[in-house]
């Protein structure tokens, strides 16, 4: 895998600033309306050609980030600058044009393809919506070329989705997203629904496409191993906020935020080289469960499960600040009053 592309300000293709998405459940008789802060002040930059992995447990808001960036859900606040133009402020016509540059692959390949359409119709649908991209007579050939580029056969174009397996369907989903040649591809748990042996096919395909076309990925998953494998940088989310963001190597080798550390240690790992009979990996077992985003803890949201939490954590939410020991540029950011350090761990 290529090294993380050097970042300079001009290289940023997507800049997200202060993204918030609050869902309000309607109140009723003697019932207060409940505000669920699914995403609460999330900011990050995505450089051209890089993969930003987003990890976190269910309810941390990672899929909501994806849906709001695609404006499938309307954001409550914030800006998403795609080459300087704010996607969240766009009217319908501008947005339509912006869709060509930003696409999404969904988790469930069975549900994300219309079962009544042939593969050809599915992959050509983007051009029906954006007819200016490709002339009608060139479409059949391009559909087949795209099929080949995702590892399927040309004659699969005439088939229907139910004739394919999950892994093949996900390739078709990728082909559809690639039809408009986007610059940013959001992958919302694209391999979570697939079997282990098939996951690798899709992961490799995504890698190949990036190497060939230089697309930037936002890769959302709960499977740390896959995210670590694919990502240049990783953002760790907890209860609607980013708690740590930085280069993949720094984060997986020396996590600074206690939550990141716990997450990494909880991941079941296939450790065949080490004689781990003798020295079992140190595992941090977090107590309790993720609190409800409708009623998050005061101060640092992780403090209820954190072994380092003090009175300060309950009072004050730690801001995302640069890790002084970070060697990367931009540096790794951590939101913790008492981050782990190289010396301490």
């Amino acid at each position, binding site marked *: 895998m290529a090294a993380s592309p050097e970042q300079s300000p001009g290289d940023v293709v997507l800049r997200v600033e202060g993204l918030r998405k609050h869902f309000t459940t309607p109140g009723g008789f003697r019932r207060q309306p409940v505000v669920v802060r699914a995403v609460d002040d999330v900011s990050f930059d995505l450089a051209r050609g890089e993969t930003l992995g987003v990890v976190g*447990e269910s309810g941390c808001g990672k899929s909501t980030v994806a849906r709001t960036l695609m404006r499938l859900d309307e954001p409550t606040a914030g800006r998403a600058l795609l080459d300087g133009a704010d996607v969240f402020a766009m009217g319908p016509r501008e947005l339509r044009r912006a869709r060509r540059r930003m696409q999404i692959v969904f988790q469930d390949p069975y549900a994300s393809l219309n079962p009544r359409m042939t593969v050809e119709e599915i992959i050509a649908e983007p051009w029906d919506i954006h007819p200016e991209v490709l002339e009608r007579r060139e479409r059949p050939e391009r559909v087949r070329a795209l099929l080949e580029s995702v590892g399927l056969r040309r004659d699969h174009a005439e088939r229907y989705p139910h004739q394919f397996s999950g892994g093949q369907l996900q390739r078709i989903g990728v082909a559809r997203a690639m039809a408009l040649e986007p610059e940013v591809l959001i992958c919302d748990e694209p391999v979570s629904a697939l079997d282990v042996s098939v996951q690798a096919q899709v992961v490799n395909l995504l890698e190949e496409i990036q190497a060939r076309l230089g697309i930037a990925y936002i890769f959302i998953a709960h499977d740390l*191993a896959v995210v670590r494998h694919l990502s240049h940088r990783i953002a760790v989310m907890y209860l609607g906020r980013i708690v740590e963001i930085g280069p*993949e190597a720094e984060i997986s080798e020396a996590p600074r935020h206690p939550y990141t550390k716990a997450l990494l*240690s*909880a*991941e*079941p790992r296939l450790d065949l080289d080490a004689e781990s009979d003798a020295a079992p990996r140190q595992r941090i077992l977090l107590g309790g469960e993720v609190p409800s985003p409708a009623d998050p803890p005061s101060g640092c949201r992780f403090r209820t499960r954190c072994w380092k939490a003090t009175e300060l954590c309950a009072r004050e939410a730690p801001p995302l600040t640069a890790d002084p020991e970070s060697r990367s540029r931009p540096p790794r950011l951590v939101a913790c009053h008492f981050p782990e350090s190289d010396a301490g761990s």
Partner: protein
Amino acid sequence: MSEAATLLEVRDLRVEFRSGLETVHAVNGATFDVRAGETAAILGESGCGKSVTAAAIMRLLPQPPARITAGEIRFDGESVLTMSRPRWRQIAGRRIGMVFQDALSSLNPVFSVGWQIAEAFRVHGEASRAERRRRAIELLDRVGISGAATRVDHFPHQFSGGMRQRVMIAMAVALGPSLLIADEPTTALDVTIQAQIMDLLASLRAEYGMAMVLISHDLGVVSEVADRVAVMYAGRVVESGPTREVLRRPSHPYTLALLRSVPGGKSKAQKLHPIVGSPPDLARMPVGCAFHPRCEMAREICTRVAPPCTVVEGASGATRTVECHFAAEVASGRVA
């Protein structure tokens, strides 16, 4: 590892599902043993027959459409499949407990969790009403539910996913079974919760001296907790033996390919090595070895003859079984 007594024996189990149009061969001759006190894992991808096997052991298969066409399942020497209903009721729940993947649909939404845990004592005619409640609270406390005395009266929907799985585990171990069958117990849960549950299962196992059959698709989980593993593919156990041996030096191409397809810890620069194609259609099984259409080392014989089950001597002297014509070559790494 000392040779403990065999607790559960599955021999050449075959299960079919018949619909009007086709016959799906879900399990095609699965064979494995579970010894008292050990953790045995059944590892495989979706559709490999691992859950059907578990359901067959628990006599939970809906018949029809399912049909057990051959094979035998023996629990503590007694044949489960031919056992009378009253006899089976004495064993199910009391000596074999089961934990399912989907705790929400496995719990009855209209009864309190305490009532459901006490159900086990009630069915087996044990304890008075007050005693049952006391023991339910004790169990909830044991599986790590804080405030058990009040939580005992709560209903399943008032618990989170991880908590519900704890309730299920409490129900499964209520009567101190000697075997626990856990069918993907953590698949629906987040990693930090998964770690909690696996930890709980391990401590309960130690406390009760239970054996456990862990059914999972997760190589990481299996490698961390299982003493022995049976790898299933297309309804057959293609390789089984001590977990460490099987996963470190696989001798079936499928096991090897599976290991190479998951992202490893450190070797990030390495490309993943996926298995081509997808698992076979169980209604139209390939002739010969079921894995041959996806196997990189398949040869002509594999397309004709199903490989016999061979016993291989491992490095540490422990034996394992493999179903491959070229097991020795795979194990020695000559074909990787």
